[in-house]
Structure formats: C-alpha cells, structure tokens
C-alpha cells in the first residue's frame, strides 16, 4: 500500500541527502583559511568545489549564483580602467572581496538548504547544543528570510503611500526597521513554539527524523578540503 506523497519522496531523494551538514560547516572553516592564505589555483579549485556541491542541492540556485558572480566579474572588468578614482577604487575593492570569499558564500547557500531540525540534529551530534547551535541554525535559515520580510514591508509602505528618503533618515529607519523588529519578535515566538513542539526541552536522549552520520562522501570531501588547505599553507611556510 502506498500513499500519495510516497512517489514524490522517492523521486526527491538526491546525493545531497548523503552529505552531513557538519561537513559543509567544516569546509567553510577550511576554505576560510584557504581563501585567506592560498593562491589563485586554490581559489579556483575552492570555487569549483563549492559550486559543484551547490549543484547537488539545487540547479536553480547554482545557475543564479554563477550568474551573480558573472555580473560581478563583468562590473570589475568595466571598473578596472577607472581605478584612479577613490570612489571607484573602493567599490572595486569591495566587489573583489565578495568575489574572493564567494566559495564560502556558496557553501553557506548550500547549508541554508537543510531544514532547521536537520541542522540542530547535526550540531547536537558533536555536542554543540543550546545557544551556539541554535544561533548558527537560525543564522543559516533566517538570512534568506530577511529579504522576504523586507519585501513585505516595502509592499506595505507602497500600499500606504509611504516613501523612503535619504534626507529623512530617522523617518526611513522607523518605516523599515520598526516593522522588521516586530516581525523578528513574532518570528522568534513562532520558532520557539516550533522547537519546543519538536521536543527540545525533553531531558532524555534525543533522536532525529534526519539521519546524521559521516558517510564516505563526507570523508572524501573533508580530505579534499584538507589537501587544499595543506597546499595553501605549504606556500607560506
């Protein structure tokens, strides 16, 4: 006997289900050192690695990320002849920093694909429970949410005929951020209800619907990251 959603569940199985979220967190930490001390080769390998990983999660996200990076590269190319100006130079440097750390942002995007309960279960596995674990989980799940909430506020302002103005900074702040703060308070209440209803306050040994274990793919990815780190450190010592 099968139920309606069973087929979809089987079809939606993908390789990304085999990847432990902790592996991506580990890669973020490794890449943060690689991108700081490594050379150009290490950067391109890290970028390809991160993009390939994101592809396992979502083709749409990967394409949009590549398009965004291509646009930034295009802007950098166009700005290069005008680097003498302080303003252009500053914008150029900022975009360069975004490009430079893009593999980490891509990994962050992949990590935000996991559900909150999956992330919490993974962090609990390594003893990161409580404040820090919840904080990191909320961070990855809430970042994409902010733009949605801001858009809601923007739409609300348009309907009521309010306009943001750079010449009225306090008024603009009140229009945008006070509703956002109220939304934050409500979101945190909802999140708390959700977490409590999933049994976080239970004192006994907790189990999770999501299987959190280290697989061969995780080990292979961590070894790849370690080799990249080793190659980067080799250059400076």
């Amino acid at each position, binding site marked *: 006997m099968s139920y309606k959603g069973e087929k979809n569940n089987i079809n939606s199985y993908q390789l990304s289900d085999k990847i432990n979220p902790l592996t991506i967190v580990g890669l973020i930490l490794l890449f943060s050192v690689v991108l*700081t001390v490594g050379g150009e080769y290490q950067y391109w390998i890290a970028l390809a690695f991160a993009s390939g990983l994101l592809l396992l999660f979502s083709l749409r996200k990967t394409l949009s990320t590549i398009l965004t990076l291509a646009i930034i590269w295009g802007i950098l190319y166009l700005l290069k002849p005008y680097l003498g100006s302080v303003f252009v130079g500053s914008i150029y440097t900022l975009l360069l920093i975004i490009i430079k*750390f893009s593999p980490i942002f891509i990994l962050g995007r992949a990590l935000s694909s996991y559900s909150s309960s999956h992330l919490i279960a993974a962090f609990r596995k390594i003893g990161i429970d409580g404040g820090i674990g*919840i*904080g990191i989980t909320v961070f990855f799940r809430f970042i994409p949410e902010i733009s949605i909430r801001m858009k809601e506020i923007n739409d609300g302002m348009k309907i009521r005929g309010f306009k943001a103005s750079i010449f009225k900074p306090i008024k603009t*702040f009140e229009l945008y951020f006070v509703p956002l703060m109220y939304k934050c308070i409500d*979101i945190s209440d909802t999140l708390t209800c959700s*977490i*409590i209803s999933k049994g976080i306050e239970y004192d006994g040994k907790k189990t999770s619907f999501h299987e959190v274990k280290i697989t061969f793919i995780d080990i292979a990815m961590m070894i790849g990251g370690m080799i990249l780190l080793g190659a980067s450190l080799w250059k400076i010592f």
Partner: protein
Amino acid sequence: MNLKGIVKIAVFSVIGFVLTMGLGFLTGSFGMVPSLYLSSALPTIIVAPVFVIMCKQVAQRGAAFLYFLLLGVFYALMGMWPVIVVCAIAGILAELVIGKKENYSDKNMKVGFGFGAGMFVYSLHAMYFAFVFGVEGLTKQFPKMFTTDYATFLYNFYSPKNIVICLIIAIIASIIGAYFGTYIYNKFFSDRKKKSVL
C-alpha cells in the same frame, strides 16, 4: 537563559550581523582613509535599536554577551575568524556596562551604553590587527588580503594623532547609538501591550 531568550537573541543577532556587514561595506565605499576613520561608526548608530530591543525583550543577563559572541561566530563562518576574539571581548564589556539584571528591563540607558561600549571595542578591530600582527605578520598571515604596501599604509596610518581621531569618532558614534537605540525602544516598544503567552 531560557530557550525563548536564546532564539530571540539568535534572530536579532542575524539582523545585527547583516546590518553591521552591509553598513561596513557602505563605509568602505567612502574610500580607504574615510573608512579607516569611520570604521564601524554607521553600524554603531543604526544597529543600536536592534540590540536595545533584543536586550529589553530577553531581559536576562548574558543576552549582550551571547549577541556579540554570535556575531563573532557568524563572522568566523564567513571566513573572518580573528573577529570572534574581538567580539567576545566586546560582549564581556557590554555585559559589564549593563550591570545588574534590572537594567535589562528598566527604561534607563544602560543597555544602550552597553552596546556603545561593545561596538567601541569592535570598531577598533582594524587597529588591533595592525598592531598585533604588524606589517610582516599581516602580509604573511593574510597575503591575499594585505599587500606589503597596504599593510605598511595601515600600520603607518595609526599614528597617535589618527588613533585619537578614531577613538573620538568611535566614542561619539557609541553615544549617538546609545541614545538612538533607547529613543527607538522607548518610542515604539516600551509600552507594547501584546505579550507572548510562552
């Protein structure tokens, strides 16, 4: 601290982090020298209401420290791991300035000044890195971020005169942030009748 408090701090620290980082980029677009003088002045003012509202909502000791610590953890996850040390120190200082638990719920400005103090420590992070690592350390530890020219420029920028200017700007921004944060809280949130049943 109860679960509700932790979740609130996590949600507000994400907003704080996004604003701090975004406004940091905006300050950077003003040019290298103005951005070194201003440092985190803009985030200190704009993020203050977020912090004050968060602390007043949570109303428990440790909220300020956890906020700054999470900020540091987020920076570490974004690859800027040295910032976590500065954020931890900023959090401890903020907690000390706020003092007793009652200050979290009272209408006084202690929470605002706590944030100002924390952001004062945070805003000087470029200076700490310049002095702790030195020119050689910066170029060796972070070769992709600092060329020898830029590291030398940064190190030389922090002359006694420029340090005093940076400190004055950071202090002024902290005071404005403290007042602005408290003003927004008192105007929109202090008399909020709707309370969660949790």
